[in-house]
């Protein structure tokens, strides 16, 4: 174990690299983010395709594998349009302001333990600071500017509305996100990302029913409420479905980037996906044990040494991306008032309450020498039973008398169901009349 423990970097291990290691790491992080973005776009389309009984992109490259690269190249050769009403300098800078913090946020994410690169021993992490996680928060705070300014500078109504919604949404959910990670700091006693990964190496010993268990170390298990709030908050923070109101295409066309085209649009797209990757990586770091192998693999002694952890880490990030995609394929978009109410009236008070509960538990267990496992056993289980009983016994809502229940009419059909006895009419004979041709073009997408 001592051999493995020596692999985990501490804060003192950072800032000692020689210059060419730094260059390799910087270029490596940049390439990793771009590659993960290209992968995430394709992965999302493939997974959503499967979830909708389709195949997804399969034309460009083997099994459609080069689709996102082709899309990116295509964007570069599209015309770059500067709207006449745009505020030119800010319109020009907004994509840069959106993209650069997205890259920077990844600089404190630990990808692996100390490895040897060409004989130099160095942690697989660009850098770490005593305030590591705050760097990510600072970058997401700066990312808001890119979106607000893009919408404002476009000089157009839809982008302005999109950026308004986006700014209000991102700052609201940033609060929930910021509160959700306080409990992690409470347990880890540090804000440095490598320290938090280290703290999740093994859990405290739990004794229940006379048996001793080695409790789980992952904060997703120890602090489930924090983990859930974090997951919900980052979906709002990254403007993804079901919280993608800033670019609700049925109401706002494309939201804040409606007026953007070509590589400027590509930068916004890149920033969105990098943000997804970053929050997934942060979720892995804060709650899912970072680069450490998950349980069945961790039995193998070599799982947490050398370059293997990179694989576990990337796997956890892809798991996060999969959840993002899953949400998008499953949930309808929320209404704006529901969304803001949920953020301010549910997430924030629950997060605050949870912080106080966790802190009280910790202080009590320290002052009065309680065992955390005992508290979980004698307080947690009764509370759980109580909650389940309340949920079970809660009276059902009285049925709304104005809602007509029953089978939809079989003959005429009512929106949105077609009549049950629908007979598809035979295809009309091909008459090359304009009216018929125009009729076939109808029913297209309404902007």
């Amino acid at each position, binding site marked *: 174990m001592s051999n493995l423990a020596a692999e985990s970097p501490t804060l003192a291990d950072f800032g*000692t690299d020689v210059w060419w290691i730094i260059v390799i790491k910087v270029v490596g992080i940049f390439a990793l983010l771009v590659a993960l973005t290209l992968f995430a776009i394709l992965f999302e389309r493939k997974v959503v395709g499967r979830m909708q009984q389709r195949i997804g992109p399969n034309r460009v490259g083997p099994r459609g594998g080069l689709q996102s690269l082709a899309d990116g190249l295509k964007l570069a050769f599209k*015309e770059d349009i500067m709207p006449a009403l745009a505020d030119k300098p800010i319109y020009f800078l907004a994509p840069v302001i959106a993209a650069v913090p997205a890259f920077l946020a990844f600089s404190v994410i630990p990808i692996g333990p100390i490895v040897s690169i060409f004989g130099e021993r160095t942690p697989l992490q660009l850098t770490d600071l005593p305030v590591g996680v*705050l760097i990510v928060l600072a970058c997401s705070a700066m990312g808001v500017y890119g979106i607000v300014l893009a919408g404002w500078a476009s000089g157009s109504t839809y982008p302005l509305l999109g950026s308004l919604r986006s700014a209000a949404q991102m700052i609201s959910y940033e609060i929930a996100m910021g509160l959700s990670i306080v409990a992690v700091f409470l347990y880890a006693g540090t804000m440095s990302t490598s320290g938090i990964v280290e703290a999740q190496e093994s859990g405290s010993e739990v004794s229940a029913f006379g048996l001793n268990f080695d409790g789980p170390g992952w904060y997703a298990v120890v602090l489930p409420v924090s983990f859930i709030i974090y997951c919900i908050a980052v979906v709002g923070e990254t403007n993804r479905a079901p919280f993608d109101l800033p670019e609700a295409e049925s109401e706002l066309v494309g939201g804040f980037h409606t007026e953007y085209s070509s*590589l400027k649009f590509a930068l916004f797209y890149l920033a969105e996906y990098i943000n997804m990757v970053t929050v997934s990586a942060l979720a892995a770091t804060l709650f899912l044990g970072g680069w450490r192998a998950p349980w069945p693999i961790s039995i193998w002694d070599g799982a947490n040494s050398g370059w293997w952890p990179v694989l576990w880490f990337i796997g956890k990030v892809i798991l996060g991306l999969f959840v993002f995609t899953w949400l998008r394929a499953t949930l309808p978009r929320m209404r704006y008032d529901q969304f803001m109410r949920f953020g301010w009236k549910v997430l924030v008070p629950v997060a605050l309450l949870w912080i*106080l509960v966790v*802190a*009280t538990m910790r202080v009590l267990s320290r002052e009065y020498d309680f065992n955390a496992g005992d508290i979980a056993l004698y307080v947690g289980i009764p509370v759980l039973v109580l909650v389940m009983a309340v949920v079970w016994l809660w009276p059902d809502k009285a049925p709304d008398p104005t809602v007509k229940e029953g089978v939809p009419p079989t003959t005429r059909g009512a929106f949105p169901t077609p009549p049950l006895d629908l007979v598809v009419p035979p295809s009309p004979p091909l008459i090359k009349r304009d009216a018929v041709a125009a009729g076939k073009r109808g029913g297209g997408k309404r902007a």
Partner: protein
Amino acid sequence: MLNPYIPIVGLFALAAAFALFSVAAAPYIGPRRYNKAKVDAYECGIEPVDQPLGGARFPVKYYLTAMLFIIFDIEIIFLYPWAVANDSLGLFGLIEMVLFIGTVFIAYAYVWRRGGLEWD
């Protein structure tokens, strides 16, 4: 002592160079065919008005959200060092923080009660 920051500066330089290059190169790589309709604001087909909605002005409602955001942001900033040093602050620190969160909660409850969290 500044060494941990050097990689961040390096990544910043690389990302900024990439983003600025993309933005600056875009007009030269793509085609340029002028058409007045292209540079007009996008309005789903109707003739665009001279200015975006309300002269590009934000409703005052958003000011309230931003103010609430600042209040909670400051609360969070106080929570972080408290959480990190929780083990050494002990029961005294906990009581302090309960008082602080409770007081800020009064502000929150007030805004909630007055309907400041409602959207319509």
